[in-house]
């Protein structure tokens, strides 16, 4: 709970930024940037998510403990992704088995 009351003006600005970022996301998707396309799209998504959390969800004015749990949620998601994808990515370095005997 924020003892500080966020003003509607702030909410409207954030909303404007979010819609602008949406336009950018869609626009950039039509530009050929090869491997950069998903990077840009996800980066914008992350920025939007952060803005929504900080302002609409009042994370900015929330106690540190809440920040810890939000961070933990994303960190654990990161653990799941990194270690699982690590397995998949590392498989290309395996020699393909041919037969039992050397």
């Amino acid at each position, binding site marked *: 709970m924020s003892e500080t009351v*966020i003003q509607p003006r702030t909410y409207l600005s954030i909303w404007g930024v979010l819609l602008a970022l949406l336009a950018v996301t869609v626009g950039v998707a039509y530009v050929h940037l090869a491997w950069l396309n998903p990077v840009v799209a996800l980066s914008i998504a992350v920025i939007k998510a952060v803005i*929504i959390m900080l302002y609409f969800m009042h994370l900015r004015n929330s106690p540190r*403990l809440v920040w810890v749990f939000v961070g933990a*949620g994303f960190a654990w998601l990161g653990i799941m*992704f990194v270690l699982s994808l690590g397995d998949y990515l590392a498989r290309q370095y395996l020699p393909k088995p041919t037969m039992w005997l050397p």
Partner: protein
Amino acid sequence: MDLTVAHQFDDAEQQQEASTLGMWIFLATEILFFGGMFLGYTVYRAMYPHEFAAASSHLDVVLGTVNTAVLLCSSLTMALGVYSAQLGSRRMLALCLGLTMLLGAVFLGIKFYEYYQKYEEGLIPGSGFTWAGANPNQTSLFFVFYFIMTGMHALHMIIGLGLMTVLVLLTRRGRFTPSYYTPVELGGLYWHFVDIVWVFLFPLLYLIDRSS
């Protein structure tokens, strides 16, 4: 005795602190819940990039963009609803909640229309799946994740609409005051979270490769 403070709590502040922390922890569990689907999607997109790109271009990017905008607007109305509650303005709160629900319903309407479109095009995975291009099996994996992820998201939206309904009823009964509006705040947190999930779903599903 303050009737809005439950007996296990010492005071309203402790109750509010606990409730808010509890809701954020619940949202953290939801991150992991959706996260499993995102992991599966990532693995298969990495394995079958061309099939996923081809499949993605069959989604209606206009409807997807409109839906994203609709949800972003609903987050605005929800935030304004919390603001109204902080000021103790019952009418504004009920109005904001109502608008949020309306926008949510619009989102679901568009979503189900998209599902119907997919059905017409024979893109529902399973025995009815028809794909004219290469590798229909791997392509169907995209649609499996599309339906599961957006379906799970839609289910959460429906639950959100249910929560909003309860909040509207409680608002009309005068339950909320500037010193007690925690359920509105918590409902808002849930709603914004569901919005954030869509913010990630949209580019991942609709915008894989629109430049060709």
